[in-house]
């Protein structure tokens, strides 16, 4: 028995040794990069070339339509301006309310800190269409906050105000998270040093902390801005007639106005690429006028009273505006409704069966997507960290972030143009095209945690294993994999959660397949509020479970820190 097992082990080791030869590594690298270029970069380049090639067609439909003239162009322009205003305002508000929260979570110790930290991440887990619906119910309908004041209409009707609130909420965790990370990475000892040198708290923040973290802040802000610019699912629910750019893409795609959709997608993608490039290359050169020092006023502002006030305000604003608003939907399901929920679900149009199929679709798409991004993302992470290709690594490192920045509806449309009927004609709108788009936009979510854990891990361990006689692949299996396991798990959960919650990209490529976020949109549009809320609650609960697992998995362990 032992003999047999040993033989098996010997075979495995022999195969691993063979596969560790450089040529197999090259093949693997080629496949990985090839996949990345085809699935993620290809569609984006394609959309630029499509616009260029079919410029005449675009010109005639966008700028010189025989009936409407340049109406399309005017719609696009308005939508773009609106998107920019909303994104800009949302990010500024987030920065104001998020910075104190990030400081509270990194520089103070108090009871319930971990709990607050988990709560801040919540809006990240909620699918945006469910979040949008929750915002609508809370601020925009009589069953929400208006009901408390005895009003029979909501505070705000669907339109810019609700969009702004929604965008503030879903970008909030992005901002707080990135601020938290840079604050954590900045050793507190610099602040201590400044304090002993006579600088009161406020001066310390202005002269020491903020210059050290400003690059991180700028990166976080731009990322949140790009996310807001590209959001579809939540916006579509609270927008009413006020259309932002991604909504216009969805509408044009639905109306089969392909050239116009391609043109707007290209513009949005272009803008977001510029933003991404700005993060990568320019953030180091941005300077704030921080040199000047104003002792007296800052000493006053550094008093404990102000510090306490700031901390309390950060928590109160978070709970009232972010937390309660996004959780409100959970209470809504339990409110008595007319018609009652179960009647609506079991009605003639078979909503229950529909809900069930969509749920299955969502999980299946999420699962398949996660498997594909794992299989392709992990080798990519190793290429970026370990290969010594000089500029190529850092180029790839930048490129993998593209899906984070560009609107998912535009990415979806680009994928449709590349892989679908207008392009290679390999996939038709439906299950596989949805999977393909989801692979594209979940790719960075999968790969980032893996990269960071590989970078943190001790290279000496692998070298040690190799000097002890293990081939590269054996080393990977026995040493590297156990160390980076949690990073992979974290990435996989993030990818799965993102796939589960995506609306915009799915809307563009779905054909007649439906996922949960999409039926939420459908049902809200059909005024089936109870069913929409029920579907939202189901998906939110799943997302919470995922978030809890994620937090558990990404907790630092003793073993990994050794």
């Amino acid at each position, binding site marked *: 028995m032992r003999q047999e097992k040993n033989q098996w082990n010997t075979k495995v080791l022999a195969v691993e040794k063979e596969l560790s030869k450089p040529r197999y590594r090259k093949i693997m690298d080629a496949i990985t990069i090839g996949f990345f270029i085809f699935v993620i970069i290809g569609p984006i380049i394609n959309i630029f070339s499509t616009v260029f090639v079919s410029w005449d067609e675009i010109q005639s439909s966008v700028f010189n339509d025989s009936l409407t003239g340049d109406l399309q162009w005017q719609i696009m322009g308005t939508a773009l301006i609106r998107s920019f205003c909303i994104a800009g305002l949302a990010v500024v508000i987030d920065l104001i309310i998020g910075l104190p929260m990030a400081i509270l979570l990194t520089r103070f110790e108090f009871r319930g800190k971990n709990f607050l930290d988990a709560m801040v991440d919540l809006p990240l887990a909620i699918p945006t269409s469910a979040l949008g619906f929750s915002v609508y119910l809370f601020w925009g309908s009589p069953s929400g906050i208006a009901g408390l004041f005895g009003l029979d209409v909501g505070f705000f009707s669907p339109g810019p105000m609700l969009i702004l609130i929604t965008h503030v909420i879903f970008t909030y965790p992005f901002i707080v998270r990135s601020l938290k990370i840079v604050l954590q990475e900045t050793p507190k000892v*610099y602040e*201590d*040093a400044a*304090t002993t040198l006579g*600088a009161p708290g406020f001066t310390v923040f202005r002269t020491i902390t903020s210059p050290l973290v400003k690059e991180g802040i700028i990166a976080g802000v731009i990322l949140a801005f790009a996310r807001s610019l590209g959001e579809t699912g939540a916006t579509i629910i609270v927008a009413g007639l006020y259309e932002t750019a991604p909504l216009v893409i969805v509408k044009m795609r639905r109306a089969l106005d392909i050239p116009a959709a391609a043109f707007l997608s290209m513009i949005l993608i272009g803008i977001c690429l510029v933003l991404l490039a700005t993060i990568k290359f320019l953030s180091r050169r941005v300077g704030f006028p921080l040199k000047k*020092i104003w002792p007296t006023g800052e000493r006053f502002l550094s008093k404990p009273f102000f510090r306490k006030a700031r901390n309390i305000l950060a928590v109160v604003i978070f709970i009232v505006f972010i937390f309660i608003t996004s959780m409100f939907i959970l209470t809504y399901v339990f409110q008595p409704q007319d018609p009652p929920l179960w009647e609506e679900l079991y009605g003639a149009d078979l909503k229950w069966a529909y809900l069930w199929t969509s749920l299955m679709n969502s999980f299946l798409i999420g699962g398949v997507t996660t498997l594909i991004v794992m299989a392709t993302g992990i080798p990519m992470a190793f290429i970026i960290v370990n290969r010594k290709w000089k500029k190529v690594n850092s180029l790839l490192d930048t490129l993998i972030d593209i899906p984070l920045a560009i609107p998912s509806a535009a990415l979806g449309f680009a994928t449709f143009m590349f892989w679908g009927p207008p392009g290679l004609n390999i996939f038709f709108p439906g299950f596989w095209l949805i999977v393909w788009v989801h692979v594209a936009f979940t790719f960075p979510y999968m790969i980032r945690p893996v990269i960071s854990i590989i970078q943190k891990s001790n290279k000496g361990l692998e070298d040690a294993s190799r000097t002890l006689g293990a081939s590269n692949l054996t080393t990977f299996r026995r040493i590297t994999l156990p160390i980076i396991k949690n990073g992979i798990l974290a990435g996989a959960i993030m990818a799965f959660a993102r796939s589960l919650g995506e609306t915009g990209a799915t809307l563009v490529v779905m054909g007649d397949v439906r996922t949960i976020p999409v039926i939420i949109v459908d049902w809200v549009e059909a005024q089936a509020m109870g069913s929409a809320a029920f579907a939202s609650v189901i998906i939110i609960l799943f997302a919470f479970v995922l978030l809890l697992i994620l937090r558990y998995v990404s907790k630092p362990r003793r073993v990994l820190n050794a």
Partner: protein
Amino acid sequence: MKNIPEIRLEHIVKRYRGEGGLNDVSLTIQDGEYFTLLGNTGGGKTTLLHIIAGLVKPDAGQVLFDGMDITKKKPYERNLGLVFENYALFPHMSIDENISYSHRVKGYDPQETTQISREFQHMLRLYDREKAIPSELSGGMQQRVALGRALMNMEGSGILLLDEPFKALDAGLRMNLRVEIRNLAKSEKLKLTVIHITNDMTEAMMVSDRIALIRDGKIIQIGTPKEMYYQPASLFVAYFFSDTVYFPGIVATVEDSSYSVIVAKDVAFKVDNPITKFQPGDGVVLVVRNDYFKIYAEPVSSEDKDNILTGKISSIKFMGPFIRFSVILEIGFLIAVDIASTHGVREKFPEGQNVWLTFNPKKAFLFPDPGEEKLKELYFEI
């Protein structure tokens, strides 16, 4: 010219979940004294320093400067210089900006600030580097910048706190800087009160006027380097300050202040004038420094010498200035003795040689027996 205060700590208590807490620490540091807090990592040294600087609030107790209670004062109101373990130079500021930071945040006259900053740079031999950023400097230069930055913030206090200032430096550089920093502190111009943290006994002995040995949040002993070395108050202090050999035993007789201690069957050692007094029958530990032994290759008469041990050399290590012999004693102990490596020592004492060891009864220490467990723990811990 300067009004240097005396620093007094009274019954300081700080509780932490892990290591590093303080348990009722009181001490007084005189004007212009170079005072060292010595102890192992996690003993509470840094916590104590941070309490003096105001970065950590004590759970109980008071910090007094010249009799004034400043326990509640913010760190930025204390005007003392703290050099951090890894210097904590602001990475985004130039050398000049780092050094002059304290004057700038207090809104002092810019021209005067620049001038004072230049003076300090000159004094610390930082020539023409005011525009450089910290990461462009060598470790030694970074340390001088950190020192300059701390010195700038000491007007009216003259208190300099050093948190393991030489830890990040090469061994050779460390030696020179120890002398340099002490000279600086004692110079007519500055006349500083220094509190210096280290876990290096030699460093503490070299620079200090007085040393406080801290362990598990308690001060074990305070004294001048000589006192710590020649009159250790406990087994721990004796062991911390030098390599020692110990024999557990029982006091047999006491005559005047000469003790006879039985350490094995039919073997008794004589100890004169121990610091602590004992009664016959008390359990004790007899401690002798490794380098207090004399070694002979031929039998020694008990009429010439007290405290004779016989044994056999089991191994030899050449340590430079001395040779360390491991000797298996007839009474069953394995001990290490250090003998100055003068000419011919090696040839005279080869491995396997039978030897006779003696030590002076005046130079042995007696401490109460903490029990075998404690003894082992102590000797293995360090």
